[in-house]
């Protein structure tokens, strides 16, 4: 995989992709989880989560400065040497694959639960993965442009949602404020970061190498994260203020129940499935980039110059795996509550920090990077 002469992703497009990726799945699952731990203070926890997100992003920016022209997988091999590096890449490939499978499960499960209960989940997954594969085969440039085209729709639907629900906001549902103790707020915030910011690790497969104007792209990374975080905070706020903490907590998908509440004069009502386009689009980008991390990592691992050949086979395996990754919803909820956080912390934070530290150490010891891996994969 070589770095193309002109970067396929512009700064503006990158910012939008960051935003979409932050919001995907988070918007579906996070409000209920936050309401469960922080009750009516859920929105405070989500704002705190935004701060954590920013901390994570600042780290990624710093970390990615060590490999301005490489992908994460290439950097692993440079830092750890050929074999150990490939081992890290392999585990990263597994991580992104599982990430993609869980998100695909969430999407199918959402449609099965709320919209079309009798449609086989496979039909939904196959249709969805087909457009994901199409996007991946068209390449980053097309993906980035798709994001740019779809973004205004997200904004429009979001403002419709907000505007239609503002009259139903009941301030007393937010009271008493600051009742949740610090530990539950932190717990909520960590879950926000675990779902929305730490998965950014797969972005390091194309950032900064394929993004134009590195300096501005860094700012775009931060801006996209802030916008996405505020978006999530707004949805959480509405959940609590319109539905109430107890109802938000009971709901499987509070943001969808929220959209169901829209009713302007018995005329503009029952539009929830249009609003649901917000999560179909954002979840699309989430799956897409997870799968991108997986196939790009695998291509690097196998020494294949172009990842495109891997997209369809991996997509097929992904559809099957998404059916078994969670045997049922209770398992999924349990997994998210207990396993996901340490899991994502390992891949999104511990390994990158270790790599960063080792990379710096080697840099300082030798004065320059090791000779073994300077041009692996090129």
């Amino acid at each position, binding site marked *: 995989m070589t770095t193309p002469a002109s970067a396929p992703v512009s700064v503006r497009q990158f910012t939008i992709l960051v935003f979409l990726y932050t919001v995907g799945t988070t918007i579906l699952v996070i409000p209920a989880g936050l309401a469960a731990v922080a009750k009516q203070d859920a929105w405070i926890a989500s704002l705190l989560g935004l701060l954590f997100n920013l901390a994570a992003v600042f780290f990624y920016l710093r970390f990615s400065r060590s490999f301005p022209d490489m992908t994460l997988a290439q950097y692993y091999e440079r830092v750890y040497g050929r074999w150990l590096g490939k081992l890290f890449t392999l585990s990263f490939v597994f991580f992104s694959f599982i990430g993609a499978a869980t998100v695909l499960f969430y999407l199918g499960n959402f449609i099965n*639960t*709320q*919209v*079309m*209960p*009798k*449609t*086989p989940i496979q*039909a939904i997954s*196959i*249709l969805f993965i*087909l457009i994901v594969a199409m996007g991946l085969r068209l390449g980053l440039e097309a993906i980035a442009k798709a994001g740019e085209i779809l973004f205004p729709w997200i904004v429009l639907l979001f403002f419709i949602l907000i505007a239609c629900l503002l009259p139903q906001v009941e301030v*007393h549902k937010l*009271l*008493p404020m600051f*009742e949740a103790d610090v530990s539950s707020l932190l717990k909520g915030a960590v879950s926000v970061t675990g779902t929305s910011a730490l998965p950014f690790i797969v972005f390091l497969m194309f950032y900064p190498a394929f993004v134009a104007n590195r300096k501005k792209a860094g700012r775009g990374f931060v801006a996209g994260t802030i916008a996405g975080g505020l978006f999530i905070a707004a949805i959480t706020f509405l959940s609590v203020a319109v*539905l*109430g903490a*107890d*109802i938000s907590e*009971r709901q499987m998908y509070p943001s969808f*129940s929220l959209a*169901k*509440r829209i*009713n302007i004069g018995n005329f503009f009502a029952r539009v929830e499935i249009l609003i649901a386009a917000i999560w179909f689009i954002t979840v699309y980008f989430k799956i897409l980039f997870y799968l991108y991390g997986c196939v790009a990592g695998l291509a690097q691992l196998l020494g294949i110059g172009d990842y495109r050949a891997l997209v369809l086979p991996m997509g097929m395996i992904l559809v099957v795996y998404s059916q078994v990754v969670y045997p049922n919803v209770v398992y999924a909820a349990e997994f998210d509550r207990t396993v996901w956080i340490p899991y994502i912390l390992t891949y999104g934070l511990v390994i990158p920090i270790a790599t960063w530290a080792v990379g710096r150490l080697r840099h300082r010891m030798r004065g320059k990077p090791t000779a073994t891996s300077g041009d692996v994969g090129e």
Partner: protein
Amino acid sequence: MSRRLEGGGALASAVLLFELLLGLLLLTGCWNRRELNELAIAAAMGMDKAADGYRISIQIINPGEIAAKKGGGMMSPVVTYAASGHTVMDALRKMSTEMPREIYLAHLRILVIGESLARQGIGKVLDVLSRYHEVRTDFHIVAARDRTAEEVLSSLTALEKIPANRLYTSLDLSEKIWATTGKTNLDTLISAIGSEGQGAVMTGIEIVGDPENGRTVEQLKRTTPSPLLRFSGLGVMRQDKLEGWLGERESKGLGYTRGNLAGAPISFPCPRGGYIGVELIRMKSDVRGEVKAGKPVGSVRIRAEGNLSEVECETDVLKLGSISELEKETENEIRTSVLEAVRRVQREYRSDIFGFGEALHRAKPAAWKKWKRDWPRMFAGLEVKVNVDVKIRRIGTVGDPVVQKLEE
């Protein structure tokens, strides 16, 4: 693609054809689509206690009769089916043995719960409704007073062809202008059942007249249809169980604390016979929980604006003093009915339907934590202050009352 077609000839077209056919496999439309003529749209649902579970009744709209531009009135606009089962779903599915279409619940307007089931507890049956994806949360929930829900659903109504619609709209309306009813939907009910500091209420519905007659269209041809369905009073719930009914005045008292009954008429006797009526047009109320001397205190502040609507006695309404006197009388009336409602609920039902507990939770979370376990007992002995401020702005289209002229 086009270049391939030009050069490739037959093979390329075959591949293209195959690709197009592949598309057909995937694009067959929604998997479990259901056409409108295969659906039985449920407008109302009734739930009763049965010997071994629940008896569920469903009021289905008869689309042919509703849509008929002319020649309608031959058939009943709605059909009610009922079946029993161990669970709600059981009963619902069992109905398929007697009806030709599949029940569709997304357009449910009203849920009627039979009194005996309501007294036994409704938590279990509400679960299925909130779990089932088809059911929304925007329908009203009422309790059938002394009757089964099935009897209520079997009664046809005049003016509105679909009884469920008529119940829905008249509940909306009566909450606005009569105030002894209250709208309860699935979310508010489930919230209140799960809350320690806020009890739930359900509006009662009763059948006036012989329910047997209500089953035929014939009765609709009279100007005074019998039987009638009527909303009457509010049922007080403790957790998920119906405990008892509030009278008209107490129901109004509760309505005042919720501030949702602008338009409600208030009348009180004149000093020398007859009544004076005031119609409230704006109302705002504020329920608060406070801590005074280490004890919880509940307070209700009501501010209302109203107009003079009728005068049966010889008062000089055009005098400045008489308006402020009227304001005082109205305030008194409101205060008394609120206090009556509070006393009755404290004494008999011990369920905090006014939400003093929740208000205390919002204002003093620390104190609430200490008391919430024991709240039903605390509520029963709670000191409640009622503060009412009424402003009468207008006296209608005329000045002095007619009776004053009569006397002269």
